[in-house]
């Protein structure tokens, strides 16, 4: 969900990743320790149960606790809690919210957030995470599960995953982040690995080896033939065999029209190229063969 926000809000300090010219700002204006919880006891109690509430690590400005995200609260306390005197990420532009979070989290998986598709489309960290009121038991997500969080926007993927051939996602055995990193990566489609195939090999290492007789589209991209989000065909194939194969292989050897073994009678007898696994009935090593006589992936 894209948050309504006011782009006119300045995205300068605090929480800005850009280093200040004169070094870290002074800690002036900070509220007394524990002052926040005196009024915001519900938020403080919820935060205390999380790692955000337990950490003693300060941000780069040397500020810890509530003020590391909400900015110095001294003026807010002095003004008896007026909204104008404190940062409220819920009303800030996405870029500003992200800047606050990244002041600590810009490392590891968040290295590639800036410039990533989600960042460029205006998502904030709080589009998916809730620091104070997370619905999930892990990862501070705004929805109960990761699947619900992602499919809140990616409805087409949600529909795919309810097809007959699907990854075990709705059963909870894999999640979106098993393959994708929503914080941005250097791979296509924010895949965790650098390519589609490397991503697939992380589970299907049996397909990883270089073999004597390669099937080029297999080595180029698994999604040439499979749709990992779900299809209506066996084995997550994007089309039924033999039509899938005939998208590239046509005319020679095996003609493209359906044909039978017994053409004399009125009945139609689909031959071995048509029923069950179609072409793969014989070309069973379609992912590549290491057999000396396996050039046609027959063995």
């Amino acid at each position: 969900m894209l948050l309504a926000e006011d782009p006119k809000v300045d995205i300068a300090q605090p929480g800005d990743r850009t280093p200040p010219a004169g070094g870290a700002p002074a800690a002036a204006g900070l509220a007394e320790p524990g002052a926040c919880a005196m009024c915001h006891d519900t938020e403080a109690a919820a935060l205390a149960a999380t790692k955000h509430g337990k950490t003693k690590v300060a941000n780069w400005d040397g500020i810890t606790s509530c003020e590391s995200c909400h900015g110095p609260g001294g003026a807010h306390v002095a003004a008896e809690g007026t909204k104008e005197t404190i940062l409220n990420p819920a009303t800030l532009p996405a870029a500003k919210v992200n800047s606050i979070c990244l002041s600590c989290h810009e490392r590891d998986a968040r290295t590639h957030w800036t410039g990533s598709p989600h960042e460029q489309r205006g998502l904030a960290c709080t589009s998916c995470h809730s620091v104070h009121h997370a619905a999930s038991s892990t990862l501070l997500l705004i929805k109960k599960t990761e699947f619900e969080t992602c499919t809140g926007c990616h409805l087409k993927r949600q529909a795919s995953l309810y097809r007959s051939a699907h990854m075990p996602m709705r059963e909870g055995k894999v999640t979106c982040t098993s393959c994708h990193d929503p914080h941005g990566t250097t791979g296509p489609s924010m895949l965790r690995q650098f390519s589609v195939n490397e991503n697939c090999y992380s589970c299907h290492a049996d397909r990883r080896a270089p073999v004597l007789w390669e099937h080029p589209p297999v080595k180029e991209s698994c999604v040439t033939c499979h749709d990992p989000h779900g299809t209506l065909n066996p084995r997550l194939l994007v089309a039924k065999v033999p039509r899938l194969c005939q998208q590239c292989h046509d005319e020679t050897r095996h003609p493209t029209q359906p044909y039978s073994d017994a053409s004399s009678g009125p009945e139609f007898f689909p031959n071995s190229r048509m029923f069950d696994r179609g072409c793969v009935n014989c070309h069973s090593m379609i992912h590549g063969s290491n057999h000396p006589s396996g050039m046609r992936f027959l063995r």
Partner: protein
Amino acid sequence: MRARGILAGWLALGLCLGLGWRPSAAQEEPPKEEPKKEEPKKEEAKRDTLTGEVVVGVTGQDENPPNSAKFSEYREVPSGFTADRLYINWTPKEGFYLELRAVDVSQLDQAVLADFGHQDHWKGWIDWSENPRQWTDQAKQLYAEHAGDVFTLDDALQSAIQAGAANVDANADGQWDAGTKGAILKSALFNSAQDATVGWQRQTAGVGFQATPNRHWTFTASSQREHRGGNLPQSLGMTFSLSPSEVAAPFDYRTDWETIGAEYADRRFNAGIQVTASQFDTGSNSVTWDDQLFLNDTAVNATTANPARGRLTYATDNRMAQATLFGGVNLAGHTRIDATVSRSETTQDDAFLPKTINTLLTPAPLPQTSYDGKYDIDLLSLRIASRPTTTVRWSAWARDWKYDNRSPEVTFTDYVTTDYQVPLCANANACGATTNPIARKSLPYGWERANFGASAGWRPTAWFDGMLSFEREVMKRDFSAVTKSDENIYKLSMDFTVNERLSVRTTASRRERRADEYDAEYFLESFPIGEQNVAAANEGMRRFT
């Protein structure tokens, strides 16, 4: 749909037990006194809390067994007492924690995670998960399974089929006539086939550790082992004996992963290195099975050399190692540059199987005993992104990914695809276009994808966001009809946020792809002695000349 009946009949009795043990005064009401009077450190040091949740219950089905294996394709649907979920959080003292999470305990799809550590200093985790994959619960096969992934048929059946008449349906009733090979085989399937299990169990165990000695450094190490074992539906072509078959072939895969990493982060930049190694071991490298149509290897003629048994390869053992350097730097003006450099190497050296196990054939010796395959993957990625004002953003990127296949080109001087090619002409290369054993060379396929582009976005108001981007992608391939292609991608996105519940996102894109370099006869390289007529007949790829 009967599966719905199962769901509707699901009897669930959930019992939630909330555990809350507070031997110390750690979780008392937050102090209302003035902040200055707080001295939490000494008191918190005594903190020892245990919280948790246990969900247990009884489940059942109104149909047993269910009519659809699809319902339990990836999970166990238990009957009786179940421990659905377990969560325990233990804080032995200030800063230390242990979290234990488990779901579907003792079931085929159980998962357990233990997460423990010292806040801000180090953490560790141990996980175990399982899940089944059930293809069907109604499979049958005529074959008997033996050690070494060998599948045999009853000799009498093979003999009867071999002696049977050719398939014919004289009365056109849609059934093979009695006494024909097809009728005999079909009858055997109905009357003698045994139940076969087609499915597997996946088990994954992992352990990891992460240390953060200070604000800047993070060190990680992790290891994972995945085991997948069971039976896979394996189609078995008999290399043109017109008797394709299928068995539930056993497999026993094991994959190990080891990763170590280190990262340094500062206000201005972060940089890290990660090294990964992985090993895959296949439990079996071949499947051998009896031909349904022939009890014994048959004499060879111009078009057939019917083998009594067939054998095909399975997955091959392989090894992978990868090193990655990554980092980013923040510049003035809300600008960031990030970069990644990576290199990996994957190898395998499994021994070749013989060309054929047909006892009547003596193919030429193999040029080498194993493949010694190897490929590298190189990645270079660079990106700059900036938000110079509150309403404007832009980014630019360049990325090069290369699959460098360094496997050898192996030449088989008398290559044979099918057994009946073996005895005809040796290596004469003059016996006809489709049946003679000719020289063939393997073509190790490789490719490279370079991608670069830029985008600019504008968000003048809270309800509108627009973005324009251009991207160019260049592909280069070894041993391919399209040896080089490029694609220009133009994209315009406009998002309208009506309110928090409704937003309209639109994208229009235009793609222009062209094959800059096209070689319709690239595959002739696979024929070292240049049999163009053979090549033209053999290759079924769509091509344009």
